[in-house]
């Protein structure tokens, strides 16, 4: 098969739709919503790529995946080459193909988006990655000969896993320490199965182990060992502990029974599989009416989870308008299809409860958009006298997370910024020689791909450091 189409022929092909589970059926199950392209859809979509001389999509990608290259191989039907090309740029394409905000990255700058729809880079990435997984391609990457150096990675989210994979490739002896009983970070405790099957993360972890990465769970650095102890036992350390501290609203009634942080709600459901109670032992409160405060991916994941746990009415409560929702467009779209309600320009002021201490509602104020704030977005201001109550029995707070001081607080010589995030230079180097950091603990809550990019960059810097150059 070849990929020699004229630009005109390419332009004539419309963007292909992702096959998905029926919205009615999927409301009650946790199986993945997107079913993935068929080979035919993938080839058609790949042929939409104009193979630009100076492609913009590459610079739209935080880790500079050579997008036209893998798409060109795919369009020509050469899947082994497409897979090899993609995997050499991105260690976890089966993950990023599913969770990257493509609409603000590669697809935003795709020239085909100027007139019509951009190439579905994310869907193609996912297709190639799933093909590679199914065919065992990329499992066996050669490693450099053993360097005799030891590196510790703290945290097993996307930043930590990527760094571990790179470091072992460079020939170093790598141990990953993870606080939870299962590795994967947000990919396993936060992002639900219906968006990212856990098997993908599990396979990646197994692949790393097979390549010699040691993973020690239930080890909390800052408690079980100090950073200083690790620094003494290892030649270099990479900190990738994420930004896992939940922020609450600080309004009255927030400690009533039925108020969850999104972290707790999602951890109970994803990591602890509480939806299967009493088959498993961890319970979760299920409500008929659930209000989720926030508008990001975390809020969308929580509200769609609530629906799957049996809520008749699951509502997003967001203080700005629909345009401002920071979540991925596809999640918003899926949420709408699943019957999620949206209350825009609304800010909670109190959680109300009954005499037994259970949540009965969320009192809110309507907001109007005022002057632009620092971020350039118009600041929501309360409308006087607009108070109203959203009746609900569960409130989930998804208004953000911050750096957890557990590790950083026990290491005074580690320089932090005013938000408590670790200060690191563009190679990930921190104020302590031999100690590097990346992902959300440096950036604040960001994205999977940026965390992976940091892991890769830091691994390269660590390798140079260990080789003394």
């Amino acid at each position: 098969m070849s990929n020699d189409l004229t630009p005109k022929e390419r332009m004539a092909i419309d963007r292909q739709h992702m096959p998905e589970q029926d919205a009615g059926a999927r409301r009650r199950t946790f199986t993945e919503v997107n079913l993935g392209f068929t080979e035919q859809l993938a080839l058609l979509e790949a042929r939409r790529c104009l193979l630009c001389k100076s492609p913009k999509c590459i610079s739209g990608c935080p880790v500079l995946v050579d997008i036209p290259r893998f798409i060109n191989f795919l369009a020509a039907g050469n899947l082994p080459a497409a897979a090899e090309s993609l995997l050499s740029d991105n260690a976890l394409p089966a993950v990023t193909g599913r969770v990257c905000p493509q609409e603000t990255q590669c697809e935003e700058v795709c020239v085909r988006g100027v007139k019509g729809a951009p190439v579905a880079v994310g869907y193609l990435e996912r297709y190639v990655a799933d093909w590679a997984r199914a065919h065992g391609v990329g499992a066996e990457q050669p490693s450099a000969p053993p360097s005799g150096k030891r590196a510790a990675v703290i945290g097993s989210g996307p930043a930590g896993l990527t760094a571990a994979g790179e470091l072992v490739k460079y020939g170093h002896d790598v141990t990953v320490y993870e606080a939870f009983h299962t590795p994967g970070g947000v990919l396993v405790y936060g992002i639900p199965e219906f968006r990212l099957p856990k098997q993908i993360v599990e396979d990646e972890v197994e692949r790393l182990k097979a390549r010699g990465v040691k993973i020690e769970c239930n080890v909390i650095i800052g408690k079980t060992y100090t950073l200083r102890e690790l620094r003494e036992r290892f030649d270099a350390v990479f900190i990738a502990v994420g930004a896992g501290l939940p922020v609450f609203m600080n309004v009255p009634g927030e400690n009533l029974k039925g108020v969850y942080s999104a972290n707790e709600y999602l951890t109970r459901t994803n990591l602890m599989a509480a939806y299967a109670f009493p088959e498993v032992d961890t319970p979760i409160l299920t409500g008929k009416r659930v209000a989720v405060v926030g508008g990001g991916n975390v809020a969308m994941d929580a509200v769609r989870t609530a629906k799957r746990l049996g809520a008749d009415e699951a509502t997003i409560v967001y203080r700005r308008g629909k345009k401002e929702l920071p979540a991925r467009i596809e999640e918003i779209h899926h949420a709408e299809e699943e019957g999620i309600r949206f209350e825009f320009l609304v800010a909670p002021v109190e959680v109300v409860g009954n005499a037994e201490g259970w949540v009965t509602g969320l009192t809110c104020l309507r907001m109007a958009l005022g002057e632009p704030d620092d971020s350039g977005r118009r600041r929501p201001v309360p409308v006087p006298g607009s108070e109203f109550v959203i009746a609900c029995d569960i409130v989930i707070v998804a208004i953000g997370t911050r750096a957890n001081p557990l590790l950083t607080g026990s290491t005074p010589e580690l320089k932090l910024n005013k938000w408590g995030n670790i200060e690191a230079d563009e190679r990930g180097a921190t104020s302590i020689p031999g100690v590097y950091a990346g992902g959300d603990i440096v950036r604040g809550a960001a994205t999977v791909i940026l965390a992976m990019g940091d892991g890769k960059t830091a691994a390269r810097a660590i390798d140079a450091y260990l080789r003394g150059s």
Partner: protein
Amino acid sequence: MHTILANTQLAPNVVRLDVVAPRIAEIRRAGQFVIVRKGRGAERIPLTIADADPARGGITLVIQAVGKSTRELAALRPGEAIQDIAGPLGQPTELLERGHAVCVGGGVGTAVVHPIAQSLRARGVRVTSIIGGRAKEWVIFEAELRALGAVIVCTDDGSYGRPGFVTQALADVLADGAVDAVYAVGPVPMMRAVAELTRPSGVPTIVSLNPVMVDGTGMCGGCRVTVGGETKFACVDGPEFDGHQVDFAELADRLGTYRLFEREALERHEGPCKIGLEQ
């Protein structure tokens, strides 16, 4: 995997598990806890470290078998294992430098107060322990605490030691004067009563809280408690707090969040008839 070294019945439904966890045994300090997950599908549950034997690499956990998860842990035999133990978590106890401390333990709380008494004694503080239980067979850790100082035992039914609640005995000790701090661990009503008793005199009173937890590292907020009008995460800011500042009513209320689930899990585990027999 953490192998069980010994399982000793201390009281009805209360067992002492000695389990392999060398690193934790080596560095744990009084007041700290671990999160235990027995195996696949099991809950993560917080348990205070009651004692440790670094030479043997073992830690001691005292478990009150009240729900499905705790019953399963309590049923573990030597040689069997717990899959996950994470820790040591929480802040170590703020120990008195010198003087006289009263350690009050109610029920399994006595096991938690034990390492505190141990550490206080080790730095030369005089320790008086007041420990209570429903009846004689519920009194635990008496011998261990006797090795550290005076012990007053109270039983609700008067079957052993002084009849009545630990608070009555504490009132007498306080009346004798010269108490520099009180450490109280037990059921919420007991800790609340102790805090109320010492409030007028202002004797520093430290209590150890046991809210619902998931991670134990500050990432879920499920363990939040109100102390001095502020929300704190018990797993990282505590679990010990100034008893005079704790909102015990809220704590007791939040502890009831999963009561219906706990009953369901237990009924499924034991079968409804068996539960009927036990009552």
